[in-house]
């Protein structure tokens, strides 16, 4: 998010009905809102719909924005709620609520104990690894994914993420830690296979 502008002035202009200010807000925040939608849903069309819904809702409700958080954090919150509505839509591909909760509540104990850090650095830099990482992030349990995306990929602070997701700061820290452990566990067999293929 671009913080090097007068946010309070921009909000006041949007509240006064200044359409150029709405355009400015879109230019500043739409890439991040699109990325959030894309990473939460894994679908470009859904991400675009979420982005449109977010800005429509935000401009409609801008008079009620009290500045308790930054504009960016407020938009993230609207976008997250829009994504959640879609993710909870019945779909055969969706995991059940029970499964999601069990993922969240169970302790993530490392079972994969293979040291794959010995792979040559160029092996971590190819396109296949990038796709594997994106797939792994997509597969994160829903309850961990939003925290992970906001904290680690969008660079929000623990406090900002807590506001955007209506969680306590402690819950954000715990979920981020679990997401990292989950990803390590998920990626280890993949990298272990690459190490083994080098040794053959």
């Amino acid at each position, binding site marked *: 998010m671009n913080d090097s502008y007068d946010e309070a002035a921009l909000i006041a202009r949007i509240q006064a009905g200044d359409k150029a200010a*709405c355009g400015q807000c879109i230019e500043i925040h739409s890439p991040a809102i699109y990325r959030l939608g894309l990473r939460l849903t894994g679908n470009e069309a859904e991400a675009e719909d979420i982005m449109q819904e977010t800005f429509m809702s935000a401009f409609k409700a801008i008079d009620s924005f009290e500045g308790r958080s930054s504009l960016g954090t407020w938009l993230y919150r609207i976008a997250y709620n829009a994504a959640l509505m879609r993710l909870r839509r019945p779909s055969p591909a969706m995991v059940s609520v029970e499964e999601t909760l069990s993922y969240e509540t169970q302790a993530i104990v490392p079972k994969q104990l*293979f040291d794959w*850090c010995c792979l040559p650095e160029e092996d971590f830099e190819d396109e296949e690894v990038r796709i594997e990482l994106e797939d792994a992030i997509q597969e994160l349990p829903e309850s961990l994914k939003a925290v992970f995306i906001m904290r680690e990929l969008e660079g929000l602070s623990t406090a900002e993420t807590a506001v955007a997701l209506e969680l306590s700061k402690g819950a954000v820290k715990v979920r981020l830690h679990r997401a990292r452990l989950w990803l390590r566990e998920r990626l280890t067999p993949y990298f272990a296979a690459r190490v083994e293929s080098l040794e053959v």
Partner: protein
Amino acid sequence: MKVEMCQDMLGDLSDYLDGQATEDICAEIERHMTNCEDCRIVVNTFEKTILLYRDLPQPALPDTARQRLYQALDLEAYQPSS
């Protein structure tokens, strides 16, 4: 992962790697790692996992999606040229 000490260390791992653990906890983790091969592997691969996803390129907002956003909001006249 076999003993309680490993579990304690695991709980502090994010704080340790984010530079938010106390000196005492850092010293305890480092001491534990010298004697526990399993934990050393977990710490190394945990840290590498973080480094890898932080290096991922950010997906870009397609120009067409941006244009449709302005259209949906009836703000086309205010769209800067890209």
